[in-house]
């Protein structure tokens, strides 16, 4: 069932998108009609006017979903499922031609030769103007200037079309002709080309970790794929072509000799260390430019014109061959399109970091699958499931070992016949260590539960300790003045600033995280309970006194209920803050939890997983808040009415 849904996610998305469009239009029309009907019922600014309006909620949600579908290329995949595969083949051609384009104005504004000429001429000019007078004799300075001029002559010679080797001219013409024949091929269309079995057997777009199938699955794709293979050959040939002209041969030999002479002078001239270093550095930089000009990478501009034209022609043919694909790409796949890297084709632009809604659901379903053997869960832990928990483990957790240690008597030691007869003290220890069989209870497990458990534990501890202290601080000078500085000093520190310290002290297991969250919850609970206690009306306390209450009874029966609204609001805030802090804490360390999943997803740039965790966190946070709101409504109906 899940397999079927997963494989047909594009078609499912197509149906969902249509439904969303319908919902959007219907809710928009309904909303406008209803609002027009009630427009005169209340004056502008009346809060009553905000009541109701489910249709605008539908409208907003469907608009958001449509935007999500669109920018994640979900719409494109739903209605043109073959587009990505075909664009991948186009991208292959682009990749093949890119080395040629890089040397021509069509790819990089200037000829590569033009850039080389300008850069080398500039550098020669600088060297010529800055001959170090202290390191070279005046004769040598004259020699250097003339040498630099001679090197400059190499550029001049290479740039002149008249000096071009006829054989090279032939090579370039052949290259252009080959490119033109590729263009012809593209214009001729796919003809009878058929995709291979292997290509058709590839998983569909987005159903596997490799996003886009690489082998061509359509005739049009086959055409581009074939052309790209040939284009790659042409490009390889182009990269090997060099402009070694006969006119430069003698010049090169002479320059080499002059440089060698200068270097010889340095060695035998008896210069001091500083001068020697300066000479060597200068000669080296002259030599470097010479070597760059020596390898024949500068071509006369005119000689490359035909290649440039051929590539332009190829681009045109490419566009024509893409045909309707161009419209699909422009309208349905926003962003820079598909790019082929060494081994795979990837979506670029918003689709790179915004996974399609259906893919997010599929990833979530995979995570939520409790069957770990068949690829469910994450890193060997389910998302949220249940297990049989030994009761003894819980008892062992609650019942500390030292109680057994403190029990009177000694632990048993082995007898002379090698047997051990355990005493009551030994049995107590086994009990405290959870080694007694007490049966099993069903209990939660999984990443979500681990996160929830940490928050709930920290919150419970925070409430149990924070509320009494807060109440006492609200009514006692000692408690207020003694604890106020401590709490107010640690509270403003962002919890994550404590994290490294606490993880060191408590370790990366639950203890550390729970303590970190406890610190957050504790401060919030103390402050809210204190505010609530301070806010108790004096007349209520006096009335309670006159009705014969003891101090403890007043604390329990008047001050606590009076502070309850603040305490519950505090809990609601603490839940939110703990949840936020937890995820960040789990990103620092640990092996389970929602934050842990996101942390791993982040390191491997798995955007689907990142979005799934974001959605899980958002929904769980919302759920916790809704529970708290419900609790507040149920437990303190008198709030604000006292």
């Amino acid at each position: 069932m899940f397999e079927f849904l997963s494989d047909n996610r594009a078609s499912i998305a197509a149906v969902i998108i249509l439904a969303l469009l319908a919902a959007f239009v219907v809710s928009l029309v309904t909303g406008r009609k209803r609002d027009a009907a009630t427009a005169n019922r209340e004056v502008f600014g009346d809060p009553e006017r905000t009541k109701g309006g489910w249709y605008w909620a539908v409208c907003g949600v469907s608009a958001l979903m449509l935007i999500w579908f669109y920018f994640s290329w979900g719409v494109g995949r739903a209605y043109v499922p073959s587009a990505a595969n075909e664009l991948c083949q186009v991208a292959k051609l682009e990749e093949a031609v890119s080395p040629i384009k890089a040397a021509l104005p069509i790819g990089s504004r200037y000829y590569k030769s033009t850039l080389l000429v300008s850069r080398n001429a500039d550098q020669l000019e600088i060297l010529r103007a800055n001959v170090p007078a202290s390191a070279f004799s005046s004769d040598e300075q004259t020699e250097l200037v003339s040498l630099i001029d001679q090197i400059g002559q190499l550029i001049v010679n290479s740039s002149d079309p008249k000096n071009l080797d006829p054989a090279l001219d032939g090579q370039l013409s052949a290259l252009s002709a080959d490119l033109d024949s590729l263009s012809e091929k593209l214009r001729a269309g796919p003809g009878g080309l058929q995709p291979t079995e292997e290509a058709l057997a590839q998983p569909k777009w987005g159903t596997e970790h490799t996003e886009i199938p690489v082998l061509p699955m359509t005739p049009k794709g086959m055409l581009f794929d074939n052309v790209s293979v040939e284009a790659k050959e042409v490009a390889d040939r182009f990269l090997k072509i060099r402009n070694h002209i006969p006119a430069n041969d003698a010049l090169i030999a002479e320059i080499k000799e002059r440089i060698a002479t200068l270097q010889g002078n340095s060695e035998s001239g008896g210069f001091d260390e500083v001068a020697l270093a300066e000479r060597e550095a200068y000669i080296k930089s002259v030599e470097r430019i010479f070597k760059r000009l020596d390898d024949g990478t500068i071509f006369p501009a005119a000689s490359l014109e035909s290649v440039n034209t051929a590539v332009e022609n190829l681009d045109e043919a490419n566009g024509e061959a893409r045909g309707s694909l161009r419209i699909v790409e422009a309208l349905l796949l926003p962003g820079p399109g598909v790019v082929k890297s060494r081994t795979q084709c990837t979506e670029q632009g918003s689709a790179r970091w915004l996974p399609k809604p259906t893919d997010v659901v599929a990833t979530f379903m995979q995570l939520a699958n409790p069957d770990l053997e068949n690829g469910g869960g994450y890193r060997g832990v389910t998302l949220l499931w249940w297990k049989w928990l030994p009761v003894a483990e819980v008892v062992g957790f609650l019942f500390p070992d030292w109680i057994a240690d403190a029990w009177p008597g000694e632990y048993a030691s082995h007898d002379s016949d090698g047997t051990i007869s355990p005493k009551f003290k030994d049995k107590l220890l086994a009990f405290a260590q959870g080694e007694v069989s007490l049966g099993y209870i069903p209990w939660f497990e999984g990443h979500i539960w681990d996160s929830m458990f940490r928050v709930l534990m920290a919150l419970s501890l925070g409430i149990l300790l924070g509320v009494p202290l807060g109440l006492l601080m609200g009514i006692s000078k000692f408690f207020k003045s003694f604890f106020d500085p401590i709490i107010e000093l640690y509270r403003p520190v962002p919890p994550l600033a404590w994290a490294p310290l606490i993880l060191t002290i408590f370790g990366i297991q639950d203890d550390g995280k729970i303590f970190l969250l406890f610190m957050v919850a504790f401060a919030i609970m103390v402050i809210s309970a204190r505010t609530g206690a301070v806010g108790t009306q004096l007349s209520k306390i006096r009335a309670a006194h006159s009705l014969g209450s003891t101090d403890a009874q007043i604390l329990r029966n008047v001050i606590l209920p009076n502070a309850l609204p603040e305490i519950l609001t505090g809990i609601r805030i603490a839940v939110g803050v703990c949840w936020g802090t937890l995820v960040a804490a789990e990103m620092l360390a640990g092996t389970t939890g929602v934050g842990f999943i996101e942390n791993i997803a982040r390191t491997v740039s798995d955007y689907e997983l990142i979005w799934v965790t974001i959605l899980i966190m958002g929904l769980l946070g919302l759920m916790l808040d809704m529970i708290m709101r419900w609790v507040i409504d149920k437990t303190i109906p008198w709030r604000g009415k006292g």
Partner: protein
Amino acid sequence: MADLVCEDMSMTFTNPQTGDAVEALKDINFTLKKGELLSVLGPSGCGKTTLLNMIAGFINPTAGVATLGGNTINGPGVERGMVFQQGALFEWLPVSKNVDYGLRMKKTPPAESKKLVEKWLDIVGLQGFGDTPTYQLSGGMQQRVALARCLVNDPDVILMDEPLGALDALTREKMQSLVLELWKETGKTILIITHSVEEALLLGERLFVMAPRPGRIHKEYNLPFAERGLNESLRDIKQDSHFAEVREEILTMIWNMEEEIMGRV
């Protein structure tokens, strides 16, 4: 005899920062016999509430002593019930739980306290409201709950701090009748503080008019209207010429005190 006796009671408030001392009350002496109904009247700042708080035991006098039935008052106690202006009800509890609060603190058996609560709710006219949250009640009904909560504890003295001040005129008159009724039926000693001259006359078997700076009892009246109010309509009593006479006399007295405070004399 559970008489309330105040002997030379004085209260001086000292500002801890400036050290300025204000004599809120000076040498208050009076004896309130069991079953007497005393109303205390005076301009604002004359120490009415301070006097009540001292008798209730919320604050200790700087000099002098108050005794109830021979026992020195030292802190709040159940034998002196309080009714506050705003009711000071516990809004998180329903009516019956407010009323039986004192009984629960004493750990009275539930069956007994249930009976008592029903009895007193009946007397104050709130039968059937036991489970109603107090925040849903009107101001008058809230004061009835406060009265019941106080009376269920069976105090010797009931201290009322402007109990009807926040009610509308009609509700106020009904509540005045209720207070007189309760006084008659229970025979409790009642000390009521008010800023309404009419109320003080109607509810005061004895009436103290207090004067400020320092707070002292300026004049004492013994009045017949409370006794009459048990049988007659309160509105008729207000029409009475004697009533009007005393009312005008006291009003003038207080008016002059106010003028004095403002420094116009």
